[in-house]
């Protein structure tokens, strides 16, 4: 658990972070979202003491972080940044292994861990491990950056716009991977972004920031349903709030489940349980269908969802 209590950070006379309170529960993903310069990075960097705070208190699992040794603190907090900050003179494997090395893990254990992470992030332990950062694409470099942050098996993950510099498709892919990895690992995560869609997709709770203050701290659904101010309303966009709400829930939650799974007809198309309601609606509109079958991961037909259900119960 991470607690920020009346934390303020000034640069000279300018206040970058203004008396904020924020609690990140263990295992949750807290996304700080806001326009550029509103103090997101400053907040994040105070948590691992890359920046000292001007006043206030920051506690990790009830302990004031200023009591810990800063290096020891950071070794237990994975850190990934937009510019990746990969060490250009080291191979991918050595980059990922840096924290295990700092923790003085035996070489065998470290190498195993590196391979495991390469696979987890969809990289090839044979060919990609021996590459240098300049030989990677932007997406691959970011994957390595995330793998490096995870390598020491830290309790806490800090990520500063890690996908900000990527093209839309690569970013989308990496967001999916993040969701998958987070379901697997359950790290307490603070994730910084200026992209509200990314925030809605990844967050357990979102903290909307403006001019150094936290305007609203709530679940994505609450943020969409009850924006605390005109600023938040503007940020989420008034026009497609309904669609964004639909995007938050999966087909599995709304569908009518059969008592028994049925055998799927070959070639019949259908939705997956994990698909979002927004996706389901889009498919219905495109195919002009009022009802679609839902298939489980195993490939059996487990239920159906109708257009009526979507429109009435979706948002």
């Amino acid at each position: 658990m991470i607690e920020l209590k009346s934390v303020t950070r000034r640069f000279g006379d300018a206040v970058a972070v203004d008396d904020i309170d924020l609690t990140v529960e263990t295992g949750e993903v807290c996304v700080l979202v806001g326009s550029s310069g509103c103090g997101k990075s400053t907040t994040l960097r105070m948590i691992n003491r890359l920046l000292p705070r001007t006043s206030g208190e920051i506690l990790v699992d009830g302990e004031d972080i200023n009591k810990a040794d800063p290096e020891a603190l950071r070794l237990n907090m994975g850190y990934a940044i937009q510019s990746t900050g990969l060490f250009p003179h080291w191979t991918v494997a050595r980059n990922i292994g840096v924290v295990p090395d700092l923790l003085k893990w035996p070489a065998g254990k470290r190498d195993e861990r590196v391979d495991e992470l390469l696979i987890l992030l969809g990289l090839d332990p044979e060919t990609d491990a021996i590459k240098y950062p300049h030989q990677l694409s932007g997406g691959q470099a970011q994957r390595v950056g995330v793998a490096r942050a995870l390598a020491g098996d830290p309790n806490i993950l800090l990520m500063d716009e890690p996908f900000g510099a990527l093209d839309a498709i690569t970013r989308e892919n990496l967001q999916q991977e993040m969701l998958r990895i987070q379901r697997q690992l359950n790290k307490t995560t603070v994730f910084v972004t200026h992209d509200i869609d990314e925030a809605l997709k990844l967050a357990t709770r979102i903290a909307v920031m403006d001019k150094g203050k936290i305007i609203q701290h709530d679940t994505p659904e609450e943020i969409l349903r009850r924006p605390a101010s005109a600023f938040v309303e503007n940020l989420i966009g008034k026009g497609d709030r309904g669609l964004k709400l639909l995007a938050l829930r999966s087909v599995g939650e709304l569908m009518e489940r059969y008592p028994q799974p049925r055998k799927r007809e070959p070639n019949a198309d259908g939705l997956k349980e994990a698909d979002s309601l927004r996706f389901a609606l889009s498919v219905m509109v495109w195919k002009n269908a009022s009802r679609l079958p839902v298939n489980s991961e195993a490939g059996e037909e487990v239920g159906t969802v109708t257009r009526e259900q979507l429109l009435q119960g979706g948002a």
Partner: protein
Amino acid sequence: MPLITTLPNPVKSNRVVQALALAALGCVWLLDLGVVQPNRIVSGTGYGLYASTGWLGTGAVISLLVVVFVLATRPAQKRFQVVAVVLTVALMTLPLLLEVLARRQLPEDSGYARIGVGAGFWSLAFLLALMLLETLGQLKASRRFQLSTVLLIVAGWWLCASREGLSSLALIREYSNRSDQFFQALTVHLSLSLGAVAISAMLAFALAVAMVKRERMRRPLLGLVSFMQTIPSLALFGLLIAPLGALSDAFPFLQTLGIRGIGWAPALLALIAYSLLPMVRNTYVALMEVPESVVDAGRGMGMNERQIFRQVKLPLALPVIIEGVRITTIQAIGLTAVAALIGAGGFGTFIFQGLGQAAMDLVLLGALPTVFLALAADAILSALKFQETSK
């Protein structure tokens, strides 16, 4: 488009080698290959290629150049390989031309008579070397291959020079009169210049690190080392005589160490002073140019400042630091020659003696090894830097 670039890269059609071959023909035609001097001081009579070496030598040189010219007309890999081999062998055996000159034109009875190397010989050697360089470049020869070619040629010259037939070459005469002094000069020259580079490298490293850590020290320190660089070298050598002389008068035990107003002590000090600027500047810039995001990431991973410096900043800065050492070493080898003026020894001794006696071959005996040392240092440190960069 991509099809073309993936084709095996052929040697490009190129007129450079041919133009150089023509220039070489002109040079050997117009300039003296060598000079026969009745003794060390008198300037002597010059001999062109034909007068020096007769039909045989003239024929060999001209057919060499014609063959190279013809082979270079068509840009084929095979042809250029032949050209490279031919040029290497020609350069290795070039001093034999002077041996033929000695055999044909040197008066037999005179013990003082000697052969001077003429402008024709130097131009021919220089142009052949340029042609070889161009050919190796066209063939995309690796660094290692180029270096072995150079070593082959040096070995060839060394073998030629140690033959009896060339003992009358003025340069070799000067050398055999002073072979003990020559090796002493080599030792002194190397230890002075390399010692100065080593000491100032350590100093410069400490200064650069201090400048990185404390921004306030940057301007005064850079100002100081730049100021030292602006003092003319002769003046700096001279300026150090008085204080060091006074010091050694005041503390006689310093004299037993050899620290006096003249000699190696002021030379070493001045060399260190000159070496500081390029090294401080390169080391400082290299350390400052390590991307902030990389340092930030290292810190964020949990590295302490020492680990960041040793594992991240230093390795990333190393190529540029080595570049500073390279520049400094070449400069120090050259300046050490001047330090002979205050009695420091080294190859400069021959240069200034030769100038005093108007004996140009003695000047060459000092100048050629100095140039060779500088080129060797350049080659070694460039290779080292290349290796560090490509990691």
